[in-house]
């Protein structure tokens, strides 16, 4: 078996294992149906001080994210329930970790097979940026116990890798010459990193909306009780976008510089460029919305979700549909 074949097989395996991870997290969610929200966590006490006062809930410190995530969740369930829920959560995480290493091996061998960085076409870009996304999730999980993202990360990766090995698959081939450019390297690697962060942010925004509604109705039960409170999720979503936005700005700028070298025009309104600009404007709108009265909260979260969808539409949809539309004359 050569590298290319190994890479392909490993990717299929990873997609399946992510699916298992998703299934385990689904069971975790289902098993947590009896969980109820904890009373708001008290402010962390300042060690040397007596009688530390903590009026309001935290403004999205890490503490907020940890509040009900992972092991700390669902205190009022019976011990048995708690153990069972936790067990499935751990199984999900274990599957995700295994899948991630297989996935990583697949991406690396793909690069070895092609003798270059594995991000020259849709198949490679999707596989590599998903590896980045899962890697970031695992690291964040170690640092801040963010297992509450697990179901979505696993399902998203499973579907994404599934598409990568079917619809997007192409055999290994060298780069076309116009891609032989340092700027292309900057452009594409920043695109993958910002795309992963936008995606995590959009997932968090979905969870924010669900949790926030439940909080308003006073029905924070089941799995929702295991999520951090809506404010902390919102802050997390914002941080993802705030991290990704300057990087995405750089992606567009590096793309323009590269286009200038390759074609002598830094901006030509081709569909890809146009949709990048649209995505960028939507994220700028998101950042504005978060500081505009009447747009905070759910409306802003919806914009963040639209932004995440736009990112993938621009990468996948444009290649599959719009280019086809454009070349109808041929």
């Amino acid at each position: 078996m050569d590298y290319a074949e190994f890479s392909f097989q490993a990717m299929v395996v990873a997609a399946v294992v992510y699916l298992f991870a998703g299934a385990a997290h689904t069971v975790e969610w289902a098993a947590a149906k009896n969980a109820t929200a904890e009373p708001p966590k008290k402010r962390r006490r300042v060690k040397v001080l007596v009688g530390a006062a903590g009026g309001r809930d935290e403004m999205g410190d890490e503490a907020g994210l940890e509040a009900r995530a992972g092991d700390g969740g669902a205190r009022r369930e019976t011990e048995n329930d708690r153990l069972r829920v936790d067990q499935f959560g751990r199984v999900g995480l274990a599957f995700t970790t295994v899948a991630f290493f297989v996935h990583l091996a697949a991406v690396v061998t793909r690069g070895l097979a092609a003798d270059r960085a594995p991000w020259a076409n849709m198949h490679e870009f999707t596989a590599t940026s998903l590896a980045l996304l899962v890697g970031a999730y695992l690291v964040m999980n170690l640092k801040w116990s963010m297992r509450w993202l697990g179901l979505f990360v696993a399902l998203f990766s499973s579907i994404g890798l599934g598409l990568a090995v079917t619809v997007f698959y192409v055999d290994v081939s060298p780069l076309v010459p116009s891609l032989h450019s340092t700027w292309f390297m900057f452009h594409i690697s920043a695109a993958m990193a910002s795309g992963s962060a936008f995606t995590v942010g959009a997932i968090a925004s979905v969870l924010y909306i669900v949790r926030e509604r439940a909080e308003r109705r006073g029905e924070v039960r089941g799995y929702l009780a295991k999520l951090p409170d809506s404010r902390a999720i919102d802050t997390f979503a914002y941080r993802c976008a705030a991290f990704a936005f300057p990087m995405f700005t750089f992606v567009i700028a590096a793309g323009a510089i590269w286009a200038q070298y390759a074609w002598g025009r830094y901006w030509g309104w081709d569909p890809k460029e146009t949709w990048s600009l649209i995505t960028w404007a939507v994220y700028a709108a998101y950042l504005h919305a978060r500081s505009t009265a009447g747009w905070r909260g759910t409306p802003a979260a919806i914009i963040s979700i639209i932004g995440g969808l736009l990112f993938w539409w621009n990468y996948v949809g444009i290649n599959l549909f719009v280019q086809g539309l454009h070349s109808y004359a041929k």
Partner: protein
Amino acid sequence: MTGDKTRASALTPLEFARFLWTQLTSMRTALSLLFLGALAAIPGSLIPQRPVSPAQVDKFLTDNPRLGGVYEALGLFNVYTSPWFSAIYLLLLISLVGCIIPRCFVYARALRAEPVAVPSRLDRMPVSASAPRSGSAASALDRGEAWLKQHRYRVRRERGALSAERGYLREFGNLVFHISLVFLLIGITWTVTFGYRGTSNVLVGQGFSNTLTQYDEISSGPAFTDADLAPFSVVVEDFEAQFEQGEVNTGQPREFALLTRVVDEPGAQPREYVIRLNEPLEVRNTQIHLLGHGYAPQMTVRDGDGNIAWQGPSMFMPQDGNLTSTGVINAVDARPERLGFEGFFLPTGTVDEMGPRSLFPDALKPQVFLTAYHGPPKHETGVPTNVHTLDKNGLEQFSRPDGSPLAFKMDVGETVELPDGRGTITFDGYQRWVRLQVSHQPGMGFTLASVIVAVLGLCLSLFVRPRRLWVRVDDDRLDVAGLDRADARTGLADEVEQLAESVLGEETRHD
């Protein structure tokens, strides 16, 4: 920032203008305009655009005349230069400027001002702590102040209290970013106004000198004059192309190298330069890119009288990735009748059920595949003829004895005799030609600088974390509190804790 909602009709014109201005420069308007701009950009990516692909627009118009007419009326074939797109863009620009100017003043004032007064109730703050203490209040505050200064806070000391703030660079970055956007747009406008871009197809072995007549196509800004064309000339000495030979992506381009001899200005010493993809030739502020290439079959047409009526390479235009190319040979001087040919050049030719086509972009088995026409001589009309299509007015197609149209395939060196002694055509060989693009974008450096500054400003604006901390010291009690003014920060509780510890100092430790 939103204006008050007084009914506009009750206002004087001046008040009304001010009302409009407040509305236009509100954050809400900026938000709406950003969305509107994003929406407005969509049709241009789905409908063919005249500046990018005029041929597809024409085809769309012939295929869908009615819908095409509606699109045309709405400017949907020219979205990015249409009045409504420009209107959104201009409104956004005005809103941006209107937003930046007052904020600059506010920021300048904030820079000179001291941190805010200490709030009366510190325990109402998002993070607060208190502790019993003893000892000198002044030295406790000294310790707190030292700690705050060390952590780059700006500190204001009141009686028995400290107010501290840091993160002023956030707003600075925000202003820099928004101002850079304005400069970015200025740079683009500058380029669009003074720049030009044109293409010229040049046979290998021939030259190009930068004058208007040498362009096949040129587009330029309103302030462009002929004098802006840098007086350089380029001779295309050699062109090498390599294509993928393997099974995957067969025929995909691999490497292009265009050897040129450049004279930067009249009288200058010629220099050699190899243009490759991503490596354009630069002459002063002008860039010359290799945009495409094709083949020009070298043909000789003899007329019925036996004279050479046409000879030379004729550029054929590539139609697909394997360089199946189409073109014409128009021998208007042939006598007794003029002759015309149209058809294909195939670098690696084959004819199958899909018709004549090329299987590989390199010239492995060059063939031409032509149909021929004849007609009475035509008087020179002075109307320029299109060199890529044959005007068949007054021409008749040659046919075989059975009545079917005459079509013939030729390999290099072959000669075909036309029926009834009307002449012959010979396929002598082929040459390559390249499409050069010359572009001058005077505002580009300025635009690039704006982008770099914008990204730096953006990073400051998003990653600098403004924070306020307060300390109040009574005879027996310490209160500390903190507030983050942006969501980008973590560790407020830690910092409040550290500050409290440092204010308490050694004394309390030993308690």
